[in-house]
């Protein structure tokens, strides 16, 4: 037999003005298992709370109903109060007598009758509740950042500066991401390398940061505060403890490979650093193209290496560590436009290039040392066409979304071209010019004044006549068909998520949208969190962005991580799902429905009919479960229940209500 105490509040006249609180109290006294009823002018006031505490002790109450304002207002207050008493904080039910009764009804009789029902429901429910206890989840004070571009580096630095250990996993051989490929950055035209490479070395030298380059996440388990992550460090074939980064090997290597960093516009060797300022500043051997590793003949690098750092027997290494928080900073790539746009030549014209290729062409450390020379014949193009929205805002051929940064970097490209080729002509085909940002529209206007000819309209076709690329478009502002005989065409192509994002996000149960961008927990209020607690987003993995926005988001993600790592332990919400293992059939319907990946099927041993049997049952991870209850309904056997909102308690509420 439980001993229920009912505490009813007048809330001044807020409740008592419409509800006859004393009549409700009178009825409550007649309810089974209710041992004490008290009314109070302001139950939430200090004396009111004191009264509740005293009554609990004096009357030996073991569960409590409060009839007052909405539980959304004071439920935490009552829970806190109960924590100081022998009553478990979860043996509580609040009847909403104010917001959903006295304030919305005028008739005193009707409102009182409804208040009586609400209290009856609360009493019926509280009688079926069980004590619940939070568990403490320890927090490993170490963060993992996936991706070493500008967003990943900024996140790592911010977390590391706050005093926590950070590991950066970078798939490429160096930090830097896409930013380090760029020549200059809008709108201030800082040299990208000048502001990006110092960050890289800062990351590389930070005592709290471990950089795992040429590495990828292999496997993940665990939950907030306790992510167990296995990282595969690909074989570099070079002992980084011995290598001094002198570069002798690179000068002698005979194998030549298309240079991806230079967007295919030059060649590199098979033993290589991505670019001169790479961090770590040591090379790796590209096993696919190394003559020694593919044919067994060569071994030049090993002969010229002064420290004997080359090791052809090297293998991938797997390491497993536990992290308290994970930040995705996996970035973007440019859409592969070639199969999508046969009308632009589909890649058969060498001088139709992408924006990233143009960045390398104007970059002083690029394949042309900063001279704008078109790829086919290395001559200076005197007429350049820039086409925006290639793959963006094109649901027919590419993506429906706007890639957000292209309006600005196409203006930058036009400006840079006109700067380097003063007698050149530059035409920009656009549909809209979107420049919301500090100093952005001014930059665009400057580009116009530099002499860039903006033409509103999409280009329909690029074709070759002689050595000219004819771009055929419409100037929609004059309704004229226009052609430009260009020497080079730059396509500002759409951003799409980096390769492999689907597999990686699935490992962490991070949601993706239809275009595979990672989904934030709330578009406005939780923009850097994901739906999996303890996993955060930074930079373009969440959607197209420019550098300032990526850095901003990186800082925001870092602050969330710092907030988490500052705690020694987390209090879990005890109102979570529970498996009745006797009923559970282990069919995993709950596993599929759970949005948090909180349920797994495990083999467990049971004693049934005096025999030991091993069978699969569901297991709820208290660190991941958020208590939504979707699994409870999906369970065919009815083995899942939600603590605090059990099937039985809700059914009794329904029953109590129906007696009215």
């Amino acid at each position: 037999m439980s001993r229920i105490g009912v505490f009813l509040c007048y809330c001044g006249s807020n409740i008592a003005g419409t509800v006859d609180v004393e009549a409700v109290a009178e009825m409550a006294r007649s309810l089974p298992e209710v041992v004490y009823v008290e009314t109070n002018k302001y139950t939430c006031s200090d004396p009111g709370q004191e009264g509740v505490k005293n009554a609990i002790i004096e009357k030996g109450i073991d569960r409590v109903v409060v009839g007052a304002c909405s539980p959304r207002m004071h439920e935490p207050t009552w829970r806190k109060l109960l924590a100081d008493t022998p009553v478990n904080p979860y043996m509580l039910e609040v009847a909403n007598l104010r917001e959903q009764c006295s304030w919305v009804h005028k008739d005193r009789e009707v409102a009182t009758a409804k208040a009586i029902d609400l209290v009856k429901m609360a009493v019926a429910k509280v009688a079926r509740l069980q004590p619940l206890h939070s568990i403490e989840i320890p927090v490993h004070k170490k963060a993992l950042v996936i991706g070493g571009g500008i967003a990943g580096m900024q996140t790592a630095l911010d977390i590391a500066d706050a005093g926590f250990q950070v590991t950066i996993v970078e798939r490429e051989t160096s930090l830097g991401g896409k930013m380090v490929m760029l020549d200059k950055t809008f709108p201030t035209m800082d040299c990208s390398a000048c502001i990006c490479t110092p960050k890289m070395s800062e990351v590389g030298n930070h005592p709290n940061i471990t950089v795992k380059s040429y590495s990828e996440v292999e496997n993940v388990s665990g939950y907030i505060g306790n992510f167990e992550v296995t990282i595969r460090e690909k074989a570099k074939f070079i002992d980084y403890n011995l290598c001094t980064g002198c570069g002798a090997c690179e000068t002698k290597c005979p194998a030549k490979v298309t240079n991806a960093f230079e967007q295919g516009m030059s060649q590199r060797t098979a033993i290589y650093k991505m670019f001169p300022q790479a961090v770590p500043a040591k090379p790796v051997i590209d096993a696919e193209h190394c003559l020694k590793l593919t044919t067994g003949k060569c071994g030049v690098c090993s002969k010229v290496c002064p420290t004997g750092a080359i090791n052809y027997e090297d293998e991938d290494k797997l390491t497993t560590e536990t992290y308290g928080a994970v930040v995705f900073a996996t970035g973007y790539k440019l859409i592969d436009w070639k199969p999508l746009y046969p009308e632009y030549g589909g890649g058969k014209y060498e001088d139709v290039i992408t924006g990233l290729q143009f960045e390398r062409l104007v970059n002083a450390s690029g394949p042309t040392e900063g001279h704008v020379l078109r790829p086919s014949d290395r001559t200076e193009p005197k007429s350049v066409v820039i086409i925006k929205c290639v793959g963006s805002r094109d649901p027919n051929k590419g993506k429906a979304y706007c890639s957000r940064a292209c309006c600005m970097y196409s203006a930058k490209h036009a400006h840079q071209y006109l700067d380097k080729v003063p007698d050149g002509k530059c035409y920009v085909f656009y549909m809209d010019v979107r420049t919301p940002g500090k100093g952005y529209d001014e930059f665009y206007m400057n580009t116009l004044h530099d002499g860039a000819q903006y033409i509103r309209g999409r280009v329909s076709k690029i074709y070759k006549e002689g050595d000219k690329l004819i771009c055929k478009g419409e100037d929609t502002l004059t309704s004229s068909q226009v052609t430009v005989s260009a020497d080079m065409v730059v396509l500002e192509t759409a951003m799409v998520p980096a390769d492999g994002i689907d597999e990686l996000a699935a490992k962490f149960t991070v949601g993706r949208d239809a275009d595979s961008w990672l989904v934030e927990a709330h578009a406005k209020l939780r923009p850097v969190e994901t739906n999996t607690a303890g996993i955060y987003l930074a930079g373009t993995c969440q959607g197209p962005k420019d550098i300032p926005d990526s850095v901003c988001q990186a800082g925001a993600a870092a602050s969330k991580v710092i907030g988490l790592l500052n705690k020694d332990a987390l209090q879990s919400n005890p109102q979570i799902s529970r498996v009745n293992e006797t009923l559970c059939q282990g069919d995993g319907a709950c596993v599929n429905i759970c949005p948090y990946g909180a349920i797994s099927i495990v083999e467990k041993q049971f004693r049934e009919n005096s025999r030991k049997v091993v069978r699969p049952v569901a297991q709820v991870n208290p660190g991941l479960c958020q208590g939504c209850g979707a699994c409870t309904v999906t369970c065919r056997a009815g083995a899942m229940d939600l603590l605090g909102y059990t099937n039985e308690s809700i059914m009794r509420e329904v029953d109590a209500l129906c007696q009215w």
Partner: protein
Amino acid sequence: MMKYAYFPGCSANTTGKSFTVSTAYVAEKIGVELVEIPDWNCCGTSAAALTSPELAVALPARSLAIADRELPGLDVVAPCAGCYRSLKTSLAFARESEENRELIKKIINAPYEAKADVLTLLDVLATDEARETIAAKVQRKLRCLKVACYYGCAMVRPADVCECDNVEDPMEMDDLMELIGAEPVDWAFKTECCGAAQQMTIPVQAKPMIERIFQNAVANGADCIVTSCPLCMLNLDMREAEINRARVANGLEPFDIPCYYFTELIGLAFGADPDEVGIDIHFHPAKTLLLQRELDALELEEAENIARAEEARKKAEMAAKIAAKKAEKAAKEKAAKEAAAQAAAQPEEGKEAAE
């Protein structure tokens, strides 16, 4: 033996005569049997589509229904691109729903289940089997002939109706031309429109369409244009003279770019005389180029033969030199050995003598 129902189209015996003749020639040579659909009628082409949607689907459906009935199991070949698009559009409409088929049946007053597929002549000749046969039948490779393969619009667009996966840069005809030894050029106007009937209705405005096609073909180094549609052919071939007159009047260089049906060229490669495949009735002089290129090919062959002979001679020369050197080397070695042996023997002799 490949067998198809044949939809010749209205131009088959008039403006498209050469196409009909050359198609028949090629089909016979490679063993493709084309059975004319009995009592076929005009497909209606764009005139029907611009008159009434019902008429546009019903006119082709009548012929297709006859084909289904009289030539069951055969797919329909329509060499004319305009006919192809009309038939294909009607077929797609019929296959879309039962309701659509009912409508057609009511109008054509005949049963129709839209069974037979509609193909272009290119589809027929581009199958692996046909390509093998063609390759085997080639007697004279059309070397040195730089061709711009012109597909026009009706064979590729709308892409979903024409089931074409490369509307900007189709390659079937290019591949066939390569097969018979010609050199297809990479050009950009393969599927641009020739103006179709608008060349009659708005002749002044539509002329530049043709002119641009010639211009791009020439700019990309083509000797001639190869077509697969009688209307494209008529517009390009017949109107080249008018365009040239206007160009000369404006002080521009006239074009000299003959047009051929792809079947004509395949016929030539099979050893046909130009007159046999209808090249004699082209408007723009079309035989000179062929003769010129035949001559070029022969000269090229000659030059190649000379080069090959020279190569062989050099090889033989060098092999001889190598052999001589080797022999010399061997002789030297042998001499040295003998000398060594002698030297070895001599001391012995000397020793003997000393003793």
